[in-house]
Each structure stands twice: as structure tokens, then as C-alpha cells.
């Protein structure tokens, strides 16, 4: 059974090898998540008219995630003026605290675009292990950079990446 699966998998893997396009340059998967008021929203509709997009996975119980969102909110206006970037924050809070996401977000005066992923469907599809986890998308909505963990000042490196993406520059792999 395992041998069959391994064979099927290697067959699948051979297809992108023939496809000649960068197989690791992926667009985000199309997954149904929810708005903060419970309406269904498909992730393929995440858009910023060709300007950079930052997707940040967080939860209300994750202190480093809240620190990161707060630190970025202090400089968000400057970032938007310089690059037009949009930050899309995805809460992975489940039923325990999902109804508390909107009051918390507004209570904190964060100005990002917020969605809820209460059963982790988008988190799983994006391959997120630990939060905070951030993805940066370029003008074609391809993932060009991602990182996990947050320390004070980490948002500066993120801004450098966003500026490069806004200018159409390549982000070297392994960054």
C-alpha cells in the first residue's frame, strides 16, 4: 500500500517537472474561509491590484502574534504610503474565541483586512506549523517570502522585503 502511494506520488511530482515553470512559485490555494461576521469568503479573492500583499496567521492567544500585529500597526500607514502594501490577517481562533476576534481587532484599532479560519483549512493548505507565520505575495499573488517567529524589530526586515516586492525585484531563495 505504501509502495503504491509512493509511486502515485512520484508520478504526480513528475508532472510539474515537465511543466517547466517554477514549481515552487505558487499562488495561494483557493480555500473557503469566513469574514469576521461569518460570511463565506474564498481566499482566491484576496487582492491588492498588483501591489504587495502580506498574509499573517495569528490567534488571540498567541502573544508574539499580537506583538507583531501591534508593531506593524505603528508603521502601517508609512508602509502603505511607500508601497501600497495590504496586510491580510487570518485568525486561526476556533469556536472558543472566534466571536471575540472582531471586538478584539476593533478594540486594538488595527486597520488590516481580517478573516477567520476557525477549522484551520487555509492554515493547513498554506503549510503553517507555528504561529506567527507571515507570507509576502508579489504582484501576481505568488508567495515570494515567508517567515515564522517574531521579535521586536523583525518588522523592519519585513518592510525591506515588501519594498523589494513593490519594486518588482526578485527575493533570493533561502531568505
Amino acid at each position: 500500500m505504501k509502495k503504491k502511494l509512493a509511486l502515485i506520488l512520484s508520478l504526480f511530482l513528475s508532472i510539474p517537472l515537465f511543466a517547466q515553470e517554477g514549481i515552487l512559485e505558487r499562488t495561494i490555494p483557493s480555500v473557503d474561509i469566513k469574514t469576521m461576521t461569518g460570511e463565506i469568503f474564498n481566499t482566491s479573492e484576496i487582492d491588492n491590484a498588483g501591489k504587495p500583499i502580506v498574509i499573517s496567521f495569528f490567534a488571540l492567544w498567541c502573544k508574539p502574534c499580537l506583538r507583531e500585529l501591534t508593531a506593524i500597526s505603528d508603521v502601517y500607514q508609512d508602509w502603505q504610503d511607500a508601497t501600497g502594501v495590504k496586510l491580510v490577517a487570518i485568525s486561526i481562533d476556533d469556536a472558543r474565541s472566534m466571536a471575540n476576534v472582531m471586538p478584539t481587532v476593533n478594540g486594538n484599532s488595527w486597520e488590516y483586512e481580517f478573516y477567520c479560519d476557525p477549522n484551520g483549512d487555509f492554515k493547513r493548505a498554506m503549510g503553517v506549523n507555528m504561529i506567527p507565520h507571515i507570507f509576502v505575495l508579489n504582484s501576481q499573488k505568488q508567495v515570494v517570502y515567508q517567515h515564522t517567529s517574531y521579535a521586536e524589530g523583525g518588522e523592519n526586515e519585513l518592510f525591506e522585503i515588501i519594498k523589494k516586492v513593490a519594486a518588482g525585484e526578485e527575493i533570493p531563495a533561502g531568505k
Partner: protein
Amino acid sequence: MILKKFSILILLALTLPAYILAQEIPGNPTVHGNFQIDAQTYHPDEALGITDSVLQGKTMRLNGYGDIRFSMWRFNAGLRYEAYLPPLAGYDPNYQGQGIPYWFVEYGDEKLQVTAGHFYEQFGMGMILRSYEQWDLGYDNSFNGLRVKYSPVSGLNFKALIGVQRYYWEPFADDNRGIVRGFDGELMLNDAFNALKETKTRVILGGSFVSKYEKMRTKTLISDTVKYEYQLPANVASAGGRVSISNGGFNFYTEYTHKFNNPSAFNNYIYKDGQALLSSLSYSQKGIGVYIAAKRIDNMSYKSKMTELNNVLDINFIPPLTKQFVYSLENVYPYATQLNGEAAIQGQIIYTIPKGTKLGGKYGTKLELNYSRVHGLDKQAIADSIPVDSTGTLGYKAPWFKFGDLYYQSISASFEKKIGKKVKLNIEYVHIDYNIEVVEGHPGAEMVHAHEYNIDFTYKLSSTKSLRLEYEQLLTKQDKGDWAMLMLEYNIAPKWFFSIMDQYNYGNPEKNKQLHYYIAAMAFVQGPHRISLAYGRQREGLLCVGGVCRQVPASNGFTINISTSF
């Protein structure tokens, strides 16, 4: 031998149409994945519950998994390989082993999505059906079967599924668990009716029906020389409905689930129906958020296997309504939902004093207040001769607006402020009343009353270097007495994290149990790749250190975590 070579060629040839198709289909095929390894060495440690009998000589343990996902046009496929060799202490030892417990193939477009294989799903808030995974907690109740999602018109969504749930590494055989069927419909009124498209009030209605089939069994009970044989129903159904109404800053949600008679080991084989009601109301606008929620559940354990008592095979998920605390000593007394019956409320206010004002300071000041309270139900006998929860009976009656014992109460206040360019300060106070007898199963134990406060102080040494100090103290006269904690973290953003931490149970009434739980840890992060090393004694709970948050089991020894996404 020749046939083998031929078969490989044939299989390779079969990929040719896919190669041709790949050239013409929009969207590039992509492959990505992630993996994580947690390895641990152990010294036996009575105080953490890591005894020689728990370890059984296996002092080096490892949990690992690797996920790979393939996408092409409208197709997705993937699998996850897991290894518990052996599982970390604190994880169910039945998970020992390795294999591929999760694989799937999926087709999806705007109207239809079909999944074959393993999948996770949630109806509404999950009180009727929720399958999910939480790697950090060793929880996985995925379905293995078929799921269809269909949206015939805009605003109307249907889901149907049939499958069996994950049961450690056991294949589905000999009726070792039930088959679950579920159906869910959701109507988004504003999308479905053109007249309502632009109205400010948004309404969503939903309904679900779930049924579990298990081979009918009988339960024998001998009482006063009379032998009773109870028929345990083969099909146990549950039904639920939900409404969500939002308008501007207001948001109202309510969900009700009714579970038909489900005698099981968990509820002592009573035939009472189960009920669950969850409601929440919130109001928020920029700078302020107010939230209140209430929940009442009665006999809501719903598993795929009527004889199961472990933390597996749950079909539904009943969320605790208590605050999820983020600091370590606040989590010494964590509440867990009592599925057999509880009533709870929670209220919270978050307010940001605007920046530029006298009280708010240059950067604004955040204030948060939270209150939560949980009671058991007032279970009354259905007849004088039948004690509450007697096997084979309707169990008990519990009036809706009468409550039993206090299970949990917490009152917390938090203050957060950035002072100047270099300093961030967060101060929090919590008062907790914790019915340790009920929540942790310590018969006869006294209710715990505790005060906890913590100070979280960050100082920026430069644009990338920062120092964070966390001081916490838990004060209580019951259970293990007082605790104090000190943590120092030195970070060089974005790559390096160093920390040392000590939790000291200085107030333990038993002098030889006044122990230190110390850890030294470091982590290196490069983009999505993270490796961390730690040494010391770790209590079980939520650990937010090194830039990430995760649930950790108790441990004493050396820990390595490696995580990456590609």
C-alpha cells in the same frame, strides 16, 4: 523482471497526457509542504508526572510529521506522514508507530468541491460536528471517506459527508468504530436575494443533521438479582440550527444542537437527549470592542464509538467559554469543558485610549477587562427511586435556569502601553476560582482561589536587538501554593532568540516539592525554517517563547524542535 521494467515504462507513459495537459491548463502545477520534528530526552521526574512507569525505559522520544501538497488547476492532492517513535510523554501512547494517516484527492471549482480520502470539517461552530487536528496537543479526529460541497446558487451552500474517524493507527475493521454521515446547509440571505444585496443588516441561516451508525449492542446490568439488557441504539442522530445577524458594529450569533438518545460509556449509558446552546453578542468600532457570550450544554459527548473514554473519536466539539490566557502562570489552572453538563457566561471589553491624548500618551494605551463564570447543572432525579445518572434510565432532569456547583470563575484586567520609542509595558491581573475536584478529577479537593499578576517589559536596545523581561506571580492557599516566574529573553531580530526562565513553586505546602522548573532555550529562524534547542524542566501548558506560541507537554531534559515550510 522484464515485465517490471515494462510496467514502469507504462506508468511513465501514463504521465504523458498529464504533461500535455499541464502545458495547456491555466495555473502552474505546484508542490509544497512542511515538516516538523519534536525530539525530547527525559529524566524521570515525579513532580511532572513523568515516572519510570510512564517512560518505560524509553527516555528518548520523537514526534515528527511531513506534509506534502500538490495542486494543479482544480485538483489538489496531498498526504501527511507521521511518526511517533515513541510519542512524547503526555501524548496518548496508542499513537506509537508511523505511517500515512492522512491523504486526500480533491476537485474544486466555484460551485462544486469533492474530496476523497481524509478531510477535516466543521458545521457551524462545531457543536454538532467538528473534525480537526492540533498537532501540539496530539489531537486528530479526521474523517476518512467522501465529502461533497455544492453551491447551486449564490448564497446557498450545501455540504454532505460520510466517513469513519481516525482511531490511532487502526484501520476500519470489525466494527471497531461507527460510520458518521453529515449534512449541512447554509443560506446567506443577502447573497441569495437581490433585493437584500446592499442592505446593511447581514443574515446567515444554517441547519445541520448528523447521524452515527454503530452495530447495535446491548448493555447488561444486574440489579437486585434482576438482569436488564439495554439496547444501545445503532443510529444516533443529532440536529442543529444557527443564525447569525450583523449590522455595522453589531454581531449576534446563536447556535442550538440537539442530540438524540446516545447511551455511552461517557454518560454512564443514560438515554437522555443532549442539548447545547451557544449565543454571543458583540459590539465594536475603532478603538472599542465589547463582547458577551453564554453557553449551556447538557449531556453533549458524541463519539463514533459508544464504549470509548479516551480523548479520541469525538464527532463534535464543545468550546470552553473561559478566557484563553497567554501567560504561563495564568494557565496553571486551565478550564476544560465538562461535556456532561455546564452553563457558562463570558464578557469582555477592550478599549484603546487614543494616541495623542493625556491618558493615552503618544502611542495610545490598551485596556482589557474580562469576566467568565461556569456552573454545573442542577441535576435532579427523575423519580425518587432512581438516582441521578443511573444506567439504562433517562438519567436526570436539569431545569434550564437553575445551576449547580461553581466550576470556574475568572476576573482579569490588563494594561498595555508603549512608553517612548524603546519601552513596551504590559501588566495583567487575574483572579481565578477553580473547582479542581471537578475539572481535574481530584475527589474531595478544596476549591482553588488564586490571584495572579504579571509584568511583561520589553526594552529595545537597538533596531534589531531587544530584551524582554517577564515576571509572574501566582498566589493561592490551596493545591500547590504560590508560584513565581522570571523569564529573560534576548532577541536579535529576525533570526536569533535566547531565553532563560524559571518557574518556582516556593509556596508548596510540602517542603520537598518546592521545586524550580528552569529552562534555557535558544532558537534560530531563517524565513520559514526554525530550529530550537532547550534544556530544563518544562511544565505542561502554553509556552510562548522564542517568537512563537505552542502547547507543550511536560518534560525534563533536552528538547529539539525543527520546523520548516517550503
